[in-house]
């Protein structure tokens, strides 16, 4: 049975790549069609804050790597510890993101075309992070109780890294390209 889940996750990731690509293409098409596209972000605090979010999310990918490594070395307690650390990173990202949303909602309405794209794309990404936190939670509990093999943690890692990689496209396209000139 080895390899099935990993392959299944790769296929899911491939299909989800197209889902996010669709949204980013929608964004680019709409942006090209609207020459007066707003650029609301200032370098400080908006971009600095989003950079902080990015660092938190990337750090959680690093802890995920350690979780997989610990599991492969047979260290279940270490794996659980790093999984929990990864979840903390994910939750931290969501918390920071929601704070940012709350501030942004004061000036940017989701009814505008910029608001539609911004909240639509970052919202879908946030939903992926939230689903990932729950997924890792299930893994952490299972690993702690002696269930799941190294492959299962690796499969979870695949998903988690994918969600991070998506952010590496969202951040420059949505944030950096909307800095006030």
């Amino acid at each position, binding site marked *: 049975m080895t390899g099935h889940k990993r392959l*299944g996750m790769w*296929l899911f990731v491939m*299909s989800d790549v197209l*889902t996010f690509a*669709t949204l980013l293409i*929608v964004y680019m098409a*709409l942006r090209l069609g609207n020459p007066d596209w707003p650029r609301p972000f200032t370098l400080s605090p908006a971009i600095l804050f989003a950079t902080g979010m990015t660092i938190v999310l990337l750090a959680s990918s690093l802890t995920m790597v350690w979780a997989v490594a610990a599991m492969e070395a047979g260290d279940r307690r270490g794996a659980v510890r790093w999984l929990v650390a990864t979840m903390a990173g994910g939750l931290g990202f969501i918390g920071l993101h929601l704070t940012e949303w709350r501030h942004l909602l004061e000036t940017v309405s989701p*009814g505008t*075309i910029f608001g539609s794209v911004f909240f*639509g794309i970052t919202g879908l990404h946030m939903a992926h992070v939230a689903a990932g936190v729950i997924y890792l939670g299930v893994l952490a509990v299972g690993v702690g109780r002696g269930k799941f093999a190294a492959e299962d943690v690796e499969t979870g890692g695949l998903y988690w890294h994918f969600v991070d990689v998506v952010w590496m496209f969202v951040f420059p396209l949505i944030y950096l390209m909307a800095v006030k000139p």
Partner: protein
Amino acid sequence: MTLFSTDHKVIGKQYIGLALFSVFLGMLLSLVMRFHLVHPDTKVRLFQMLWPEGAPGGQMTPELYLSLMTMHGTIMVFFVLTTAPQSGFGNYFLPLQIGAHDMAFPVLNMLSFWTTALSLGTLLLAFVVEGGAPLSGWTAYPPLSGLGKITGPGQGLGQDLWILSIALFCVASLMGAINIIVTVIELRAPGMGYFDMPLTCWGWFVTALISLFAFAVLLPGGVLLLLDRVAGTSFFIPGGLIVNDQVQGRSGGSPLLFQHLFWFFGHPEVYIAILPGMGVISTVLSVFSGKKVFGYKAMTVAMLAIGGLGFVVWGHHMFISGMSPYSSIAFSVLTMAVGVPSAVKTFNWLATLWGGRLRFTAAMHYALGFVSLFITGGITGLVLGQPGLDIYFHDTYFVVAHFHLIMGVAAVFAIWAALHYWFPKMYGRFLNERLGKIHFFLTFVGVYAVFVPLHFAGFVGNPRRYPDFKEYEFLKSVTGLHMGVTHAAYFLAAVQLIFLFNYFWSKRRGAVAPGNPWGATTREWTDD
């Protein structure tokens, strides 16, 4: 047989049962539409009972006609043509043919069936909610589909449910696709290479690959459309739009963008419907010719080519959308290119028959019928693939005739071939051969009687999706034609009772079948 079984055979039968229910429901809707087209002013008590708002006093409103059309298309495309050939027969026979005990993820398999069932339930719910079913067709183009009740009675809750149903269907199809791909890659019997698999397995495999990418694009398209409706966003709604004398107050969106997203899914969807059938037909023709399939490797490459090209031809659905003529030419040339692998398959089928010892079983009849329909419907595809002709034919009955023959009826003939061929394996009994052949001949005549005349209605410029032609002077010439088509449709529908009877009667009383009744060489008959 439990309801939430994870056994691939049970799930396959569940999918086939769901498709069987859907196909008869979809057919009944089409009969009501055909009736209304030729008797637009007749009041029918039954209509009033079924749709009090849509048919006050029994007089069908244009909105009701459009909602029937939307539901007919959606039910047939998603819950019949996408469900039975791929998820139904694929689930049942893929593991058997490659020597696997079950699919790679049995629980996921069960979930994908029940998500499909939930999706169908959500769609049917649209019939009974306030305002009734949506009006915007299976393509759901905005702005019509994006603005809510102001664009029509079914465009409120009905359209929301429609989008929700399609989103659920996308999720179910993605789960199913992942399952089939992993099963093919990981669970082939030891020593069985990719090019040792029967062509049926290639059909399901390539279809799953197409599904994996096509539904991944429809899903966000549908979600964005839903956001436009419920969250007031403006992805697909242009600025300054006035509907029913009301300014809509959105800005910056692009309705064309939705068309691109929809057809990036929508064209591959056509191949999702037909490729599993191509696999089945290859097998049936080969078994009943007593020969191997001619050009096995070319067949697999042709399937991959059709699947790949399917993703780069979506623009041919949008020739009249105002796209640049240069883009039209590119899409046109790529569309013509699909003719090459399609012709390779057709000629290989004919070469498979050549010099064989032909056995004209019922399944063989349907397989030959499939080849005929595939050619007839395919030729008109080449006509519609040319911008110069398509600009004239677009949204006429010529298009209706084209896609019904190749995507609808051809795929359904493949389902009948598969049912007659595999029934002994599924139920231990034969479907009645004589009834099958009678049903085949009557149906074959019926479908051509329905759809060939519709090409001519297209020549006259008869627009589709119109509930009533009597106001248009230039359509007086096709009144008789439509009367004939409607009667042919009644005949065709009546003939299906033979199939229905055969199916349920043979399940219990059919002649008992031996283990390998057709003398086939694939594993589902020889292992056990």
